[in-house]
């Protein structure tokens, strides 16, 4: 039994991180959204900067989530930025 969650990256996050979606193993439970962001940020500066931007929002299982949200196996996490064009 794996501990994977699925992560989606939207709009320019997908471009800049060069990743549209991935399966990610939770190394401990419980893991909070803030902890997940920390783990992903260890991948490098781009990850650190983009996920740390105040305007980058996150949803868990299709609902807006705050940093203290607790993740569990099978959850779907989405990171998305505001887009501005028209």
């Amino acid at each position: 039994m794996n501990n994977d969650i699925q992560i989606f990256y939207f709009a320019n996050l997908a471009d800049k991180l060069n990743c549209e979606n991935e399966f990610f193993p939770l190394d401990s439970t419980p893991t909070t959204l803030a902890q997940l962001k920390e783990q992903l940020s260890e991948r490098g500066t781009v990850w650190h900067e983009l996920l740390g931007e105040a305007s980058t929002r996150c949803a868990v299982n299709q609902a807006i989530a705050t940093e203290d949200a607790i993740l569990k196996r099978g959850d779907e996490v989405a990171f998305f930025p505001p887009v501005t064009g028209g």
Partner: protein
Amino acid sequence: MTETIFTQQEWLRYSRHIQLPNFGAAGQTKLKQSHVVIVGMGGLGAPVALYLAAAGVGKFTIFDGDTVDETNLQRQVIFNQNDVGHAKALQAKHHMLALNPHIHIDAIPDFFQPKHEALIDQNTSLVLDCTDNFNTRYLINDVCVRQKVAWLYASIHQYSGQCALFTPGHACFRCLFPAPPESAPDCNTAGVIGVLPGLLGLFEANEAIKYLSDLPLELENRLLLFDALKLSVQKIQLAIDPQCFCQTGEKGKFSSPQMCAEVQQQSISVLDFNLHRERANTTVIDVRTEAERLGFNIGGQHIPLQEILTLTDSNNHWEKNRQYICYCQSGSRSEQAAQHLQACGLQAVSLDGGLLAWLKHASKTQMLHP
């Protein structure tokens, strides 16, 4: 015949709505009695305006302070070649009325600004955000929260789009995005696939018609994330942020949203200069020396370059929503001036080729005086 809500011609025109299950005469009547405000008549506004006009929404107020340019025609399908150089709001009104003469339109050839707040009130059924910047979206949000009016948000970037319906009592736009985007480069990649604003505009128009005719809503308090390449859609449930001004009423704690660092044009042609300078929200500035100014000028205010370069962004004699056009003799000092004003957060451009280019053009077209 007794007096009816619809004329004979309208009843025929809207028959496909009237025969639609769950819509019918009642839905069509609600559309006719609605007043929508469309802010922005660009890639999103074009399909929104066309489809809502065709659908028979009774009353419109439309805003856009811009003029149609050639590059708009790749996606702003309400306009055609003959509209180039003319005010978007007025041309859009013209085309909407040509499509449906049974509707009323107030066209405001100006950008939506705080001074227009009074135009959104309890008689407004719905506001549609069809703008291209965060400043205006925050303004629409704040006005709609205050006036308890529902509004639809849509925006696009390259191949991605977002759309949401904000209604009183639910999360507002600042609950969703308390901070504007930080990374300016996003705005600098101005390319967009032409149908994307069309798709997002139609998501807005679809949700608008459902909202106005009391059909079930899919995007109320939800954000649609759309990807045009993968054709994938996600709908995210929104949540009220207890810290947000819509809950606390404390407007002041929010720093004023920064203008998204849109690609600001550095210079404009003589033709555009002549068009733009007539606008109420434009100020022309002669940045040359006193001697040159006295020697000959084509109007505008006189503020020498050296004085402009001492400005800081805290200076409040300048208006963020005003377009400043700088000119000098041949265009290089005015370019410096425009760049500095832009760095101070203002909208500024330089007359390409300066006074010389203007004079050459004027002599060619026999236009001897400004």
